[in-house]
């Protein structure tokens, strides 16, 4: 076994336990000073003033320390290799954090008159244009707040398109069995029926099954390309043609666009609508679960159905005057999907990212993401079974089990990785691979990091056969060991404040 002592960092947490903020509270403490109300006083509204407010009372240093301690109990891209498949955990550039915080952006109010926020509108317009170009689309909305939100927007548009044509028979959406859970969940929210499509033995959507499923009752297909196995759909043009031929539309889940920028445009491959994940492909930070941003691109067919409002040039200007930007409402808009203008702070970050990279940089990112994934696949395929073994794109799926090491599961491999300060890959997804481990290194990882990860994975494979207990009892040096999730769901302790008397 290679000596990893040079690489293993003593676990980061300076404290392995931290009380709740309420436990640090003492009556009378406050963390920040506020001005005096230097105006004549008005009586408070009678009968509407609350009698008590159960919030902590702590000093500013206590707040700082508390949250600093808590932060040290997290793994993060900044500190750890984080090969979560489908999440694209690439470096989150700090330039983006600075530009998003420029006062002109962060203090601008969403309802200000358009003439007073031309900087914001110019930025959003340009981002729309770049995303159009990257995807091969006719129009883009920046309103959706996350990928799932973009999916919902896209499916609502597909539904509206058919209803607008008087085609009321279409209620089915075709979804491969490898799809992310948000895809079928989105269809249910739109009042549509999910029809699952099997995958063939090369990991592609089964063409025969697709052919049979296509018909006049189909709204369209929701497909991810490359798919959740990290594989490029080898018959993608046939897939989109089959769906179009029966009058359906093609929705693209753009979560895996990190393999595709400058490589191929979904619009060229036949996609009618696709969401982007700015928090994956375009480096906006994951923030422990959000905020994300899910802009949606559409072909000419669906342009008129986009959520209102869109940014557009409302006055071309001339040699002396710059163009004026403003809001327009698409003719047959499905409506507003969010208050105000979308996750503007993430638009600034994505704009900054695209600007710094340019077209050539973005393409290089995709190429290196795919190079990194294939390199790891080449190093690991001997020790782990690969369900669909061919050249992958930006991610690949291993099986986290061996017939000759029956006690060990993907979960155990994941927990053991934590001992080496590596965040586990995505577990148990896609559903079509047994004990799935989905690995996505991203382009910002060096060969040294990849080599180390491969060594650790090979070590773990060895341990699985020779000393499986080390895996079963992992992790060993995190702030907590494996959690009792059954107890959490049973006891449901979701709040640490006493229930007020009126609720008893």
């Amino acid at each position, binding site marked *: 076994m290679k000596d990893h002592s040079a690489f293993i960092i003593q676990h980061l947490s300076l404290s392995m336990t931290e009380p709740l903020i309420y436990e640090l509270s003492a009556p009378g403490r406050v963390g920040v000073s506020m001005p005096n109300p230097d*105006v004549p006083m008005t009586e408070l509204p009678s009968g509407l003033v*609350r009698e008590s407010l159960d919030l902590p009372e702590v000093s500013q240093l206590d707040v700082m320390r508390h949250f600093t301690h808590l932060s040290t109990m997290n793994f993060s891209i900044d500190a750890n290799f984080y090969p979560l498949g489908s999440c694209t955990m690439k470096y989150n550039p700090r330039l983006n954090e600075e530009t998003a915080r420029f006062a002109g952006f962060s203090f601008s109010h969403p309802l200000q008159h358009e003439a007073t926020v031309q900087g914001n509108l110019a930025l959003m317009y340009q981002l729309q244009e770049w995303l159009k170009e990257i995807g091969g689309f006719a129009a883009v909305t920046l309103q959706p707040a996350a990928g799932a939100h973009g999916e919902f927007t896209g499916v609502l548009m597909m539904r509206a398109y058919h209803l607008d044509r008087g085609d009321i028979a279409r209620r089915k959406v075709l979804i491969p069995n490898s799809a992310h859970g948000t895809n079928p969940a989105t269809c249910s929210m739109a009042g549509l029926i999910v029809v699952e499509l099997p995958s063939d033995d090369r990991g592609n959507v089964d063409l025969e099954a697709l052919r049979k499923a296509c018909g006049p009752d189909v709204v369209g297909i929701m497909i991810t390309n490359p798919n959740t196995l990290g594989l490029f759909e080898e018959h993608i043009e046939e897939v989109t043609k089959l769906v179009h031929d029966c009058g359906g539309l093609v929705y693209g889940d753009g979560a895996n666009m990190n393999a595709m920028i400058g490589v191929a445009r979904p619009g060229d491959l036949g996609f009618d609508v696709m969401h982007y994940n700015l928090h994956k492909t375009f480096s906006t930070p994951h923030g422990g679960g959000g905020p994300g941003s899910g802009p949606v691109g559409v072909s000419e067919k669906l342009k008129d159905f986009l959520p209102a409002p869109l940014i557009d040039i409302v006055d071309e200007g001339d040699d002396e005057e710059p163009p004026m930007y403003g809001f327009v409402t698409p003719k047959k808009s499905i409506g507003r999907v969010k208050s105000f203008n979308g996750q503007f702070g993430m638009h600034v970050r994505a704009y900054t990212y695209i600007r710094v990279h340019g077209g050539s940089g973005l393409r290089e990112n995709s190429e290196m993401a795919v190079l990194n994934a294939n390199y790891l696949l080449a190093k690991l395929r001997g020790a782990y079974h690969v369900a669909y073994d061919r050249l992958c794109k930006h991610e690949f799926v291993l099986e986290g089990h061996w017939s000759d090491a029956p006690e060990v599961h993907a979960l155990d491999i994941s927990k053991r990785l934590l001992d080496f300060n590596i965040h586990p890959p995505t577990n148990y997804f896609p559903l079509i691979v047994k004990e799935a481990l989905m690995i996505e290194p991203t382009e910002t990882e060096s060969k040294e990091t990849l080599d180390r990860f491969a060594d650790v994975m090979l070590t773990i494979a060895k341990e699985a056969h020779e000393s499986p207990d080390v895996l079963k009892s992992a992790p060993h040096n995190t702030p907590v060991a494996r959690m009792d999730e059954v107890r959490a769901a049973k006891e449901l302790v979701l709040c640490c404040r006493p229930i007020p008397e009126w609720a008893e």
Partner: protein
Amino acid sequence: MSYVPHTDPDREAMLKTIGVKSVAELFADVPAKHRFPELDLPEPLSEPETWRELRDLSEANADASHNLSFLGAGAYHHFSPPLISQLLLRGEFLTAYTPYQPEASQGTLQVIYEYQSMICSLTGMDVANASHYDGATSLAEAAIMAFNHFKQKKTKVILSPAVHPHYRAVVRTYTQGMGMNIGGDDHLDRALKDLLPQLDNNTSLFVAQYPDFFGNIEDLKAIAHKVHEAGALFCVVTNPVSLGLLTPPGAFGADIVVGEGQPLGIPLSYGGPYLGFFATKKEYVRKMAGRLVGETVDANGKKGYVLTLATREQHIRREKATSNICTNQGLMAVAATIYLATLGKNGLRRVAELCYQRAHYAADQIDQIDGYAVNRSQTFFHEFVVKCPRSVEEINAKLFDDYGIIGGYDLGKEYPHLKDCMLVCVTEMNSREDIEELITALQEIKE
């Protein structure tokens, strides 16, 4: 500029291991005629040059740090204690993922647990989730939850017209494929009590806003009672800073409380990222959408936190999930938790009172200017309606061009019966001098 670390020797060695001659070979399965398109995108730009371009764009805006602002209408200019932004920049919060691996995410999990608890304290409810995208989508999820609670048999939702126009629009967009009947706001000038006759045994949800879109506050106990008598659920859309002062909706019978968490230390940022909070009663927890953090113990009996009741969510239940929501507003919930901890019980009350007092002072002063009339028919929190002597558009243009002041919201845009009416907002960020500047400007403008 690129963050890619690969050297030429790296690439060569890696290609050799893979067994291909070039990177292009890795893309052989992409249809040849669509492979490697020429994209009309700019050339790469260095970091300092990019910084400058973004800086120039940001300065092509007016903003509340450079201009006096009295604009509210659902997004508010409050003081964000600097430690919030500093803590949010810690890589362990900023660059962490969703806490699916609890052993690697106790920081995020405990913060969300504290957030859930504080939202419960503020709203007077039993349980809160880890967030929705914003107040509008939170309300949409409330409508869906009520619909599902009654097993999709009750299809009617009554929305008060005094609920934020964007929120009402989003509820309609969200539910367009669900066979629900969204109403209540067909007459935009209707008072809450005049909506009660619409309650029937086909009503799943009645929604009121508190303070409402016009800033008004009223006792909703009687409304809640009537809603419950009709067998429906009562949802209140609220402002979390106002709850530093006002009776919480849980105390007067709300079943669901939603709203916009942006006032809790989150920047205006031209509309996002914001924070949708959602709180409800214990009995509805399994129907609630969104992530939930619960307390438990680990294998050694040590207390810790995990995501729980995942069987409601998309990654487990797929088409049967309560919602498709995956990514939420995680880091914004962290911001709100830090804000509420820093201000605490006394500080939040103080901010709310400052807003209330200064807004009432401003209203009194504006009311005294000839030609302007403040609507005093109801008590208000920190926003009030002013009938102006000219169109709001003209007044705001003059306020901005001649005084650099960002004026209030033009209500006539969404509420025709409130033509020439401006919604003026005053927060703790508007000093007495600021208010007096506004008064002087309004005086001079009308002349």
